[in-house]
């Protein structure tokens, strides 16, 4: 694996940690980070040792404060940029991971940062986290899926308010509007994320994948088709041998 410049990747007891690592500029997202995320997500996707992915930001101040505006003025012509966008579609890659992805969010979580967090399955935030979608103020709209993921998670009214106003939402408000699953103190954040990740990593990976698939694909379907999807996934899990029961048997319980 090539040496990364903008991210850190670590693997430890079934957990894959991706850390956005440009702390001096609040971990803003640039072309290099896109390429490195693309590379690591492709690897993580196929690595059976990784059962849960954790995404976090380096430094004290931010998870990710958005896109690197310095690069905006040196961006390639739109036709070329659009082609690259879909050739290295890091956002769809994020959403296509079959394993759970947990965002560990502290400090600023803005623009591309909040969009990246929305590509995760679960979001845990520290009490100092601030969320915002400031694109309107720059004359653009979110382009990393935010206009689709945010309303699907917090509903149309809250999403449009965040998009139109560009205002920052603090952690308690984010919890209330279901932008995040939980809020804890800064010191407790990573331990809470890891406790949850370890718990999930301890379960049968096929069952965890099936649960994610049933929910995420099922929400795109009419209820009746979603129920059929669940039945198929559940049935195939039940038909396969279950190590959990073997362990219970061997333990004589």
């Amino acid at each position, binding site marked *: 694996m090539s040496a990364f410049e903008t991210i850190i990747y670590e693997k430890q007891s079934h957990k894959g940690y991706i850390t956005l690592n440009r702390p001096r500029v609040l971990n803003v997202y640039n072309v290099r980070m896109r390429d490195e995320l693309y590379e690591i997500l492709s690897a993580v996707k196929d690595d059976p040792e990784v059962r849960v992915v954790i995404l976090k930001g380096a430094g004290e101040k931010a998870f990710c404060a958005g896109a690197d505006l310095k690069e905006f003025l040196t961006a390639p012509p739109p036709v070329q940029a659009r082609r690259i966008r879909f050739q290295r579609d890091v956002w769809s890659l994020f959403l296509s991971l079959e394993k759970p992805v947990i965002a560990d969010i502290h400090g600023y979580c803005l623009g591309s940062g909040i969009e990246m967090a929305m590509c995760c399955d679960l979001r845990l935030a520290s009490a100092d986290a601030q969320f915002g979608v400031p694109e309107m103020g720059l004359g653009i709209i979110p382009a990393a899926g935010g206009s689709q993921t945010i309303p699907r998670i917090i509903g149309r009214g809250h999403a449009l308010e965040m998009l139109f106003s560009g205002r920052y939402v603090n952690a308690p408000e984010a919890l209330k509007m279901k932008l995040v*699953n939980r809020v804890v103190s800064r010191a407790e954040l990573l331990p809470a994320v890891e406790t949850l990740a370890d718990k999930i990593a301890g379960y049968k990976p096929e069952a*965890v994948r099936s649960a994610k698939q049933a*929910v*995420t694909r*099922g*929400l795109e379907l009419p*209820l009746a088709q979603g129920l059929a999807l669940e039945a198929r996934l559940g049935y195939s899990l039940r038909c396969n041998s279950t190590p959990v*029961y073997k362990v219970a048997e061997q333990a004589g319980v």
Partner: protein
Amino acid sequence: MAYSTITLQIQDRIARITLNRPQSGNIINLSMAQELIDACTLIKQADDVHVVILTGNGKDFCLGNDSQQPLKKKKPSPTEVFPVAEAVAALEIPVICAVNGDALGQGLELALACDIRIAADTAKFGFTDISLGFIPTDGGTQRLPRLIGQAAALEMLFSGETIDAQRACEIGLISAVAAKEALLPRVDAMAKSMAQKAPVACRYIKEAVLQGLDLSLAQGLRLEADLYFLLHTTADRTEGIKAFQQKRHPEFKGK
């Protein structure tokens, strides 16, 4: 059909189904599944039933099915799970779940198939299937995210942890929490009030909302308009307007 695992009482337009295996946490076995399906069929055919209450006898609402019991020795077979949620979900009239105690696994799926959930403050909720290497298969992975959103649903499904009634209320899994002894009176009052409304209109509201959620907004609005104008043909609508003008309580006939 004489029931042994549930009870069914019908009185004043309200049907009350009570899961009745209190010694075993109201766990769903084959008999209970069959009896629940039978009771739902019977209610569906009874025009004089306008509201259903589903609750459990004893300290639990329902702890799931046999295969969801941890530490069970033998590997469950795929045929050991008996779907029941669909029978409850197929009821066209309002169904209120009085969650008198813990609702786990298939028990929670049963509660999710109801329209409204009010719970005792002692109740706990969770899908523990994942710890046994399974996923819920009676609608849980579909109805839970539709009710509380994808992220909160995934947290419950991935973690396998239970949540208490207070938290369940915060995330919208249940509508309200009541002290244990106040639960049934509260649900009864709610059912009584709904049972006095025009029954065809109640059925159409349920149809518009549940079907509409599966449609595009334009199609949903069309469905709503069609049902609304169909209601204009009912005698109940005429009675409702007359009663309002004459300042008296309407006498709805369901016609």
